[in-house]
């Protein structure tokens, strides 16, 4: 046990001595999130709007003016009919369309409620959500002042409709995707490189000649990477809460538990890679090409898995990040509990312990 601590201490020294790598490890998630945050706030400015006004009364005009006065929006065109909306979107210069039905103000004055359709381009989900949220706020603002004017409450119901991508996959997909990607990269690459480095240096031989237990070598290699990954996880969660307004809605314990399962899976993959890799470069390329690509492509955060051909869909089942991604989405974004993700958690647990056992067994006790 004392030997294990000596070894873990050494591993931490390696990590802390290598400032460049350390910076990269912690810079990676921060850079990804900051970039994403900026991309988000930049694009919303001057979003062009198309308006279809069947009612053509003073109230609709007031709302349109109010929207147009907002710095985030710019009224691009007045369309004659709702059938032109699709064409306008396809031309690509508008981000959102407003449709006021017949009798808008009559309904509003007589019944106290009216509806307005807000149609957004769902293929850019981040933007679509933000834009529709802004418009809803502008409209709510207007009705609030109108209620005061009229002396009784009136309500305009924005009916939000997403074109092309109705369930808005993408936006909140990003954070779980970054989490899966960053954890996968750090764990797999760091583990395989640090073991292969000892092989290259010749120190692995010394370790194997010593009475030090091989399992201990592996455990101490994993310890710093586990810690770095947990710190990274924490950074991502804090940043996404502060800047992207994506707090952890569900149980943080469940989220951390599942993250540890995922981290263990990635560490084991790193171990497996280190067994076959002969040089640090090979280990690094192996983790980049072998792990990053499948993680990006087959996890579902860039490309929806449902739309893939059957062979790829089947293949994606083998990618651990796919299951982790689902868990994070359900727990963090939707606030669901273990009841909703027990299947994915189980799959991840089987992968984690299965791969760990395989890599332990294959890790060569004797140098050949």
């Amino acid at each position: 046990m004392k030997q294990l601590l000596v070894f873990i201490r050494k591993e931490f020294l390696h990590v802390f001595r290598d400032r460049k790598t350390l910076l990269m490890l912690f810079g990676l998630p921060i850079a990804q999130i900051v970039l994403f945050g900026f991309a988000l706030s930049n694009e919303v400015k001057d979003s062009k709007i198309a308006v279809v006004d069947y009612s053509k009364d003073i109230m609709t005009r007031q709302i349109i003016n109010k929207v147009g006065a907002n710095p985030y929006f710019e009224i691009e065109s007045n369309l004659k009919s709702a059938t032109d909306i699709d064409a306008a979107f396809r031309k690509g210069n508008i981000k959102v369309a407003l449709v006021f039905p017949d009798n808008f103000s009559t309904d509003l004055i007589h019944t106290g409620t009216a509806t307005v359709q807000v149609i957004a381009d769902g293929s850019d989900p981040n933007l679509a959500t933000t834009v529709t949220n802004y418009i809803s706020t502008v409209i709510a603002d207007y009705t609030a002042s109108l209620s005061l004017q009229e002396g009784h409450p009136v309500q305009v119901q924005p009916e939000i409709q997403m074109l092309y991508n109705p369930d808005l996959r993408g936006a909140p997909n990003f954070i779980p995707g970054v989490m899966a990607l960053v954890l996968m990269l750090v764990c797999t690459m760091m583990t395989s490189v640090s073991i292969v480095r000892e092989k290259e240096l010749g120190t692995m031989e010394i370790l194997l000649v010593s009475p030090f237990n091989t399992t201990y070598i592996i455990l101490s290699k994993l310890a710093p990477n586990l810690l770095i990954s947990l710190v990274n996880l924490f950074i991502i969660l804090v940043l996404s809460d502060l800047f992207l307004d994506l707090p952890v809605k569900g149980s943080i314990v469940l989220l951390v538990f599942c993250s540890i399962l995922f981290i263990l899976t990635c560490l084991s993959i790193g171990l497996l890679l280190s067994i076959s890799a002969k040089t640090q470069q090979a280990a690094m390329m192996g983790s980049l090409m072998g792990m990053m690509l499948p993680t990006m492509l087959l996890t579902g955060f860039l490309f929806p898995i449902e739309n893939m051909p059957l062979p790829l869909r089947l293949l994606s089942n083998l990618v651990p990040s796919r299951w982790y991604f689902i868990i994070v989405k359900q727990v963090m974004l939707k606030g669901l509990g273990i009841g909703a993700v027990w299947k994915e958690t189980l799959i991840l647990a089987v992968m984690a312990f299965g791969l760990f056992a395989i890599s332990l067994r294959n890790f060569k006790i004797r140098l050949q």
Partner: protein
Amino acid sequence: MNTEAVIVTDKLTKRFGPFIACNELTFQVDKGEIFGFLGANGAGKTTAMRMLCGLLNPSSGKATVAGFDVYTQANRIKQRIGYMSQRFSLYDDLTVSENIRFFGGIYGMSISDIKKKTSALLSELQLEKEAKTLVRDIPPGWKQKLAFSVSIVHGPDIVFLDEPTGGVDPVTRRQFWDLIYEAADKGVTVFVTTHYMDEAEYCNRVSIMVDGVIADLDAPARLKTKYQVSSMEEVFYALARNAVRKAD
């Protein structure tokens, strides 16, 4: 010289498929002896050494190291031996004293023992000032000597040196051998492979491997008399020129 044997092998053999890397090696190394293990590349030196260190299981034959059986007591053997390979084997990004602490630590030495050993070792190597220097920043010659000292920091019975002076200048090599003599005087058995024939002269006895078998084994002086030559170089050449195996 004490005649207590610390390494005893009897027809020790290692096969890799049809290839016989080591064929029925039988020899004995005594306590405190400096035993040279010579042979061309591919002759089977490293394989033999690995079997004795418990890194490789023999195919047949018997061997005991420090009184322990290589088949069943590899872990006991590991506790009693030190090892240094031709590749420089300390951690570049750790300081001198961190390296000593680590290697002492994995052999289970206590912190106070390590501290005592560290200061003794550093003063012996005149490296006191460099205790907190990263190993990558000290000159190559010092590293080699430090690596040797670290390999015996836990006080092993036997130290295995696998071409320890590869790529080192003659002066440092000479100093390195002074360290080996000092260790041997303290009763540490030194088992060393080398390519340098002048180093073979420094050994008490040498064995010369050719094509997986021990072609001859004796004190350097007696070998020279036997082959009627004036240097170990010529002894080696007389034995190795008939080798069939190509270097690996």
